[in-house]
């Protein structure tokens, strides 16, 4: 029983780390622009497909492909911000939400056009399984966890320790004051979209290696990302990390001990419960 318990925590953390990567991008974009960037899941799938394409068709190695895809994702993020979100930056939030839906449709179908309808699994050489006291840990899953951890720590350092990160935080806190202090909000928003989309692509690649890249995956991924945002508090980076892990682990438990068909229902019920008890999320301080 205890072994089962630890096994499910491990499984949950692996999946949760992917949710965290998705949620980090969503939460940064939301915290700064109030945009519910629904197309984030499609951007992630674009990254997964692109990585597969680079590896299988062009014969580029796994790691370089991964990095190239993240760079392409960053570029895509900038394009989306400039072309679609920038024109509605002063309109009511529902407008940017509709834009996000339109983008989702477009990117989703462009993915289909460019990469086909088949689901693909990103090939990795990581096939060993490590067994620690009865808990099975496939090497691949350990790498996923490690890569996610590196990216999350990297992003946190970028936001907390660098000049551009300080600008991002300033805009999130008080846009008008940030503008008065001479921060170029335009370049901050492009930076945020680039960073978030690169992280989203990373999540897409990890999903592709762990499970599969397929046309239907993106909406599930983005909805889980939003669930994490609700759990952790909209706009909160620590909230995204804690919320992602919590969602992953509770899903793993629900699948193992209750019913795998209803695991999503259980994780959403958890989210609804959290909203009722703490409407501002688990990590959000009540004063902004």
């Amino acid at each position: 029983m205890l072994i089962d318990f630890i096994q499910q925590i491990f499984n949950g953390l692996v999946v949760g780390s992917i949710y965290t990567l998705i949620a980090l991008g969503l939460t940064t974009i939301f915290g700064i622009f109030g945009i519910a960037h629904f197309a984030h899941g499609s951007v992630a799938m674009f990254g997964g497909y692109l990585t597969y394409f680079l590896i299988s068709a062009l014969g580029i190695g796994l790691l370089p492909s991964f990095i190239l895809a993240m760079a392409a994702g960053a570029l895509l993020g900038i394009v989306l911000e400039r072309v679609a979100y920038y024109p509605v930056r002063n309109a009511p939030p529902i407008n940017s939400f509709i834009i996000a839906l339109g983008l989702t449709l477009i990117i989703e179908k462009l993915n289909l056009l460019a990469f086909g309808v088949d689901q693909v699994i990103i090939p990795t050489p990581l096939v060993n399984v490590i067994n620690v006291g009865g808990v099975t840990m496939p090497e691949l899953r350990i790498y996923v966890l490690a890569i996610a951890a590196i990216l999350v720590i990297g992003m946190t350092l970028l936001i907390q320790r660098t000049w551009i990160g300080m600008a991002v935080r300033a805009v999130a806190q008080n846009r008008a004051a940030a503008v008065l202090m001479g921060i170029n909000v335009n370049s901050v928003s492009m930076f945020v979209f680039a960073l978030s989309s690169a992280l989203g692509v990373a999540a897409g690649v990890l999903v592709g290696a762990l499970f599969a890249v397929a046309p239907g995956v993106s909406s599930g991924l983005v909805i889980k990302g939003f669930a994490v945002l609700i759990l952790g508090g909209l706009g909160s980076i620590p909230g995204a990390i804690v919320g992602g892990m919590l969602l992953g682990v509770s899903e793993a438990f629900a699948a193992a001990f209750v019913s795998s068909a209803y695991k999503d229902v259980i994780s959403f019920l958890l989210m609804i419960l959290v909203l009722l008890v703490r409407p501002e999320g688990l990590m959000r301080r009540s004063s902004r």
Partner: protein
Amino acid sequence: MWTRFAIVAVIAAAIVFPLFVTVNYFIHLAILAMIFMIVAQGANVIQGYTGYVSIAQGAFMGIGAYASALLSMRAGFPVWLSMLAAPIFTAVAAAIAGYPALRIKGHYFAIMTLAMNMVVFTVLVNWVSLTQGEPGLPSIPSPEAINLGFTEIAFEKRRAYYYLALAALVLVMWIVAAVVRSRVGRVLLAIRQNEPFAEAAGIACWKYKLFAFIFSASLAGFGGAIYAHYMGFINPTPFSADASLNAILAVILGGSGTLTGPLVGGALTVILPEALRVAEIYRLIAYGLLLILVVIFLPRGLVPAVVDGVRSISRRRKTP
């Protein structure tokens, strides 16, 4: 006076429409469009008038559809009765879901309702003993024929069902117009414009928000019931979050917070994807592009934009 004339003209046009259209496929699209107008009008009540974006309209449509189908097939209700029971059933579900959900605002509320849609969808897929899951419920009966003495109206016929859907739409429009123009409607508008202020003026906003949510859901449930008995077959697919997003799009495209907006938007969301028939993939891309362009260039929707256009032209004529 002009509005009343326009309403009569539109209804008259809708009545004669099947007489001039010989292609069954167009009648089919018109029926689907009218069903979707009812669902979109429901979304308009909560989104356009109250200012709360709900992404659960598809789920409530599904609840209405399954409720009506199962009541008529398993519980032996007459179809007419189960179609009327479906909105009530949906209203109860919406009351249970809305009571906790309406304690939160803005994006939180939107995402919460999206999660509810996912929950309902998952239950529809997995509660096989009740819903028969993914393969769906086949052979849902049509409404019983009405005997007028000299002739009998059989609703298996597409044209007869067209008039049924039209009557339902007119009924819904009439009820929504009455609600929107009543005191309740003004309170809903006040909530959209400034909820704290409305609260400060002594209005118990939560009651009105809950009413708007339940009302909008029951319209979706009604639309779902009409859909179920028209198609004769339902499975969970048309009630996913996509349907909810489509309802939101219909409201935005047509013009939110206007009575006619959801009619135009609902028709467009059903007909545009069909009209843009290049290839499935390209037409959805074009649809997405169109959406973005409308939001950027006509942010208030088509109906207000056209109305403004007509007004400015007539004003220009008057001033020499």
